[in-house]
C-alpha cells in the first residue's frame, strides 16, 4: 500500500497542485430523505480515491452530482479550481468527467467498435474508430477484438468495452461505480492493474465507488467513508485497516460473519491451512474474530441424509437462436444442506432460477422432487411440489408491486384464507398480520401497497411467503442483493436457520463470500454448465475464481 503520487504529466497542462475536483458542502434532499448532507470531496490528479459506504450511504448521489445527473440543493463544484455548474452529463463530458457505470450500457447486437462509436456525431469512419480501439487497448493492456460482437463477450470483457468507451474521450476524471460486482476475482485484479497504470502514467484522477473493503484497501491511495449521507472519515489508504474502516462505515463494531461477508471480507483462512494472504494483509486482524459463531456448524456435516430431496438430471434449456442457457446440468439437494451455486452473473444462474420457478420448460432432462418428476414450465408446478423461490429480481417474479402486502403474502396459497373460493377478509388480515410480525416486515399494515415498502422489507415479504408454504426446497437467488447490512444479516441468518430446520437450500449467488460463508457444498456455473463441485472445506476464493473464469474447461 504505497503512496503513488508520481508521474504528474497532467493532461490538461494545469497546475498539479490544484485539485482536479473539489465538491464543497454538497447537500441533496429527495423528499424527506437527505441523500447527501454537506459532503466535501477533493480529488487529486494521479490518485485513486476510494469512496466507501453501505447501500444508501449517498455514494451514488454524490457521483451523480459530479457527472451532472443530479443538481445539488446546496454546495459548489470546482473543476481544476474553476467553479462550475454541471447541469447534465454532456456538460460533465465536456469538462473531462466520465463514469463507468455499474450496469453496462452496451448494445449486444453491435460489435465492440460500433459500441465505442455510439453517441458519436457526424460521419462514422469505421477504420478510424477501430484503430483507436486497438490503440487504447494496447496502451492500457485492455486487450480486446474490436470486431467481436458484444453479446458474446464475458462480463469482464464487456466492462473493458465500457472502459474503452470512456477512455476514448480522454477524460481527466474517471469514476468507477462498483466496478467489480460482475467480475471474477482475477478480472478485478486486472482491472485494478489497469487503473493504477492510467493514474500513474497520465495523472488522471480516478474515483472508485465501492462497498467492498478489501478492494478499496487494495486499489486506492486515499479513502472517503460515507454513512447516512455524511462523510464520516477520510484518510490516506496506508493509514487505514479493514477493521477501522468497517467500523466507520457501519458506525459500530463489526463482528458477525454475515456483515464481514457483506463487505467482501472472506474467511479465506478456513481452507485447510492454506495461506491466502496474498491480497490484503490487513485482513489478518479481523480474522481473529472469525469463529464467533462456531456453534452453528451446519448439521448437514454431521448427519448427512443420503436421499436427495431434489434431483436435477441432465437439465438443458435453449434460448432463442439456440443459445445454451442451461447445458446438461445435474445436481442433487439433500434435506438440511445449503448448496451454493457460484459463478459470474449471466452464466445460466437466472435460467436455473426461472426453471425452479416454473417459468421455463426444459428441453432435455428432468427435475425430480421427492421421487416425483415435476413438469417444468407448467404454472405453479414447482411451488406445488414444494420448491420455494426467492427470485433474483423480486420485481420480476417475486412480488406484485401494485397489490397489497397481504395479497403478496398470500399469492401462492390464497386458499389458506378462503372458504368456497371467497377470501375471508378477517382471516386474510389476521394471517398477514401474523406474518408481518413474525418476519418483522416494516409496513403500515396488511393493506399497504407493496411498492410503498423498502427493498429490504419487500424481500422479507417474499421470504415470509415462501417459508410459510413449508417447502422442501428453498431456492435463494442473489438473496442479499441491494440490501443493507442489517437486512443482509437477517437474510443470512434466516437461510441458515431454514437449512437447520431440514429444508434443502439452493443458494445462487455471485457474491463468493456469501457462498463461502453459507454453503456446505459449492458448484460453479460457467456458460450454462456446472464446471466444478467443491466441498465447503475445499473451497476458497482462488479455486472458485479459477473455476468461474472457466479455466478448468
Amino acid at each position: 500500500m504505497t503512496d503513488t503520487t508520481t508521474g504528474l504529466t497532467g493532461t490538461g497542462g494545469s497546475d498539479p497542485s490544484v485539485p482536479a475536483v473539489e465538491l464543497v458542502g454538497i447537500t441533496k434532499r429527495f423528499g424527506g430523505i437527505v441523500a447527501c448532507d454537506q459532503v466535501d470531496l477533493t480529488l487529486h490528479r494521479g490518485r485513486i480515491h476510494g469512496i466507501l459506504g453501505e447501500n444508501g450511504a449517498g455514494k451514488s448521489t454524490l457521483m451523480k452530482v459530479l457527472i451532472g445527473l443530479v443538481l445539488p440543493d446546496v454546495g459548489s463544484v470546482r473543476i481544476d479550481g474553476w467553479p462550475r455548474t454541471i447541469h447534465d452529463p454532456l456538460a460533465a463530458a465536456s469538462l473531462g468527467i466520465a463514469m463507468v457505470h455499474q450496469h453496462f450500457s452496451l448494445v449486444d447486437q453491435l460489435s465492440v467498435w460500433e459500441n465505442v462509436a455510439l453517441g458519436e456525431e457526424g460521419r462514422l469512419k469505421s477504420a478510424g474508430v477501430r484503430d483507436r480501439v486497438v490503440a487504447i487497448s494496447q496502451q492500457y493492456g485492455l486487450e480486446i477484438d474490436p470486431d467481436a460482437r458484444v453479446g458474446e463477450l464475458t462480463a469482464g470483457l464487456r466492462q473493458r468495452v465500457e472502459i474503452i468507451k470512456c477512455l476514448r474521450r480522454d477524460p481527466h476524471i474517471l469514476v468507477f461505480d462498483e466496478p467489480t460486482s460482475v467480475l471474477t476475482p482475477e478480472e478485478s485484479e486486472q482491472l485494478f492493474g489497469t487503473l493504477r497504470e492510467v493514474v500513474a502514467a497520465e495523472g488522471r484522477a480516478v474515483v472508485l465507488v465501492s462497498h467492498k473493503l478489501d478492494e478499496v484497501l487494495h486499489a486506492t491511495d486515499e479513502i472517503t467513508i460515507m454513512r447516512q449521507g455524511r462523510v464520516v472519515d477520510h484518510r490516506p489508504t496506508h493509514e487505514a485497516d479493514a477493521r477501522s474502516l468497517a467500523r466507520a462505515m457501519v458506525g459500530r463494531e463489526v463482528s458477525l460473519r454475515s456483515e464481514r461477508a457483506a463487505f467482501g471480507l472472506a474467511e479465506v483462512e478456513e481452507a485447510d491451512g492454506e495461506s491466502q494472504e496474498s491480497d490484503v494483509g490487513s485482513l489478518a486482524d479481523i480474522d481473529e474474530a472469525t469463529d464467533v459463531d462456531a456453534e452453528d456448524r451446519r448439521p448437514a456435516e454431521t448427519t448427512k441424509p443420503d436421499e436427495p430431496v431434489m434431483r436435477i438430471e441432465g437439465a438443458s434449456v435453449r434460448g432463442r437462436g439456440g443459445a445454451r442457457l442451461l447445458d446438461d446440468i445435474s445436481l442433487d439437494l439433500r434435506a438440511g444442506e445449503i448448496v451454493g451455486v457460484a459463478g459470474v452473473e449471466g452464466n445460466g444462474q437466472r435460467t436455473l432460477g426461472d426453471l425452479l420457478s416454473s417459468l421455463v420448460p426444459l428441453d432435455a432432462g428432468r427435475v425430480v422432487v421427492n421421487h416425483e418428476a415435476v413438469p417444468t414450465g407448467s404454472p405453479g408446478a414447482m411451488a406445488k411440489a414444494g420448491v420455494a423461490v426467492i427470485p433474483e429480481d423480486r420485481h420480476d417474479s417475486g412480488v406484485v408491486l401494485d397489490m397489497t402486502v397481504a395479497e403478496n403474502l398470500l399469492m401462492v396459497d390464497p386458499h389458506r384464507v378462503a372458504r368456497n373460493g371467497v377470501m375471508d377478509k378477517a382471516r386474510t388480515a389476521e394471517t398477514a398480520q401474523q406474518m408481518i410480525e413474525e418476519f418483522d416486515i416494516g409496513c403500515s399494515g396488511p393493506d399497504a401497497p407493496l411498492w410503498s415498502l423498502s427493498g429490504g422489507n419487500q424481500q422479507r415479504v417474499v421470504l415470509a411467503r415462501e417459508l410459510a408454504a413449508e417447502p422442501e426446497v428453498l431456492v435463494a437467488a442473489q438473496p442479499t442483493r441491494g440490501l443493507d447490512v442489517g437486512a443482509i444479516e437477517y437474510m443470512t441468518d434466516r437461510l441458515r436457520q431454514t437449512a437447520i430446520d431440514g429444508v434443502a437450500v439452493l443458494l445462487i449467488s455471485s457474491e463468493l463470500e456469501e457462498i463461502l460463508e453459507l454453503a456446505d457444498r459449492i458448484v460453479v456455473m460457467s456458460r450454462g454448465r456446472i464446471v466444478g463441485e467443491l466441498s465447503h472445506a475445499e473451497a476458497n476464493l482462488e479455486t472458485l475464481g479459477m473455476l468461474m473464469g472457466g479455466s478448468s474447461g
Partner: protein
Amino acid sequence: MTRGARLTEWVALYALSVAVALALASVIVEATGGDWWPVVEALVDGSIMAPGRWGGTLGIAAPLLLVALGTVISSKAGLINIGQEGQLLIGAAVAVYFSFRIGGPGPLNVVVLLLFGALGGAAWASISGLLRYWRGVPEVLSTLLLVFVALQAVGYGLKWQWLLLADEASRGNRNLVSEQLAKDNRIPRPDIFGNEFPITVYVAVALALAVAYVLARTVWGFRLRMLGHNPRAAQRAGVSSTVYGASALAIGGAFAGLAGAAMFAGGGFSFGNYRLVPGFSDNIGWTGLLVALLARERALPAVVAAFVFAGLRNGAGFVNSTGVQSRITDVVQGLLVLALLVPPAVVFLRDRRRARAAATERV
C-alpha cells in the same frame, strides 16, 4: 392522500376539464353561426330533463354497462380487448338465430335468448383467445380485426333466409332484416313516472355489483388480478395465463354478447325495433369500451360512467333539433367525451410516475 382530498381533486379535475370542453364547444358553435346556450339546454333536456327521457337514457346505459363490465374483466387479466362492437353484434345475431328456432313461452325464451347472446359473444372473443394462447397473436389486433369480420358475417347472414333473414311476408319490401321478436318474447319495459326502460337495467347494475365482488373478494378474481399485474409472478404462483387469460377474454365477450341480445330483446334503440338489421350494434360496443376506460377499469364506477355516456348519447338527439349542423353537434359530443377521459388519464399518468419514482428510490 386522504379520501376527502382525493375526491375534491377528482371533482375539480372534472369540473375544469368539462368547463374547457364547453368553452371550446361554445366557440365552435358560435363560430359556425349557431347559439351555444340552446345546445347545452338541449343536451340536458334530451338526456334527463324532458319527460320520458331519463328512461331512454337508462335503456342505453344498460348495454353500455354490460359491455364495460366485460372490458373490466379482460383488462384485469392484462388483456386489451377492443373488439366489443363485433362481439356484441355476433351475440345479438346468435340470440336472434336461436330465439326464432327454439320458440317457447315468453319469459323462458327471453332467458334462452340472453344466454345464447352471451354464448355467441364468448365464442367470438374466444377466437382471439385461441389465437393468442395457441399462436401468440396479440389480442389487441385479433379482437379489433374480428369486429370487421363480424360486421360482414352478420351482413351475410341477413341475406339468407336459412340464417337470419325474415321471410318475405314479414319483412315487407325491406332487405337485410330479421324477423321481429314477438311481443310476449320481449324484455319487459315497465313504466315508472312516465319513463319506461327495460328491466335489463337492473340486471346490469346487479352484474356490476357481482363483478366488483368477484374481482375483489374471490380467489379467482385475486388470481386474475395477479396475472394482470405481473404475469411471471402469477405463473410461479400457479396461475395459468392460458386458462385465466382465455377465460377472461371469453367472459368479456360474453358480456358484450349479452349486451347485444339485451338490445335486441329490450328495444329502445333508434333503429332495429326488435329486429336485427345491418348496423344494429350502433357503436354501443365502442362506447362501452370508453365507459370502461372512463371508469379506469373498475366495475362500480362503470355504473356512473355508463349513465353519463348514455345521457350524452340520448341528449344528442335533442341537440340536432336546435338547428345547429349535425356535424357540429358531433364535434361538441366528441369534445365532451374527451373532457370525461382527460381526468382519469391525468391521474393515471401521475400515479404511475409517482409509483415509478417510489420504486426507483427504493431499489
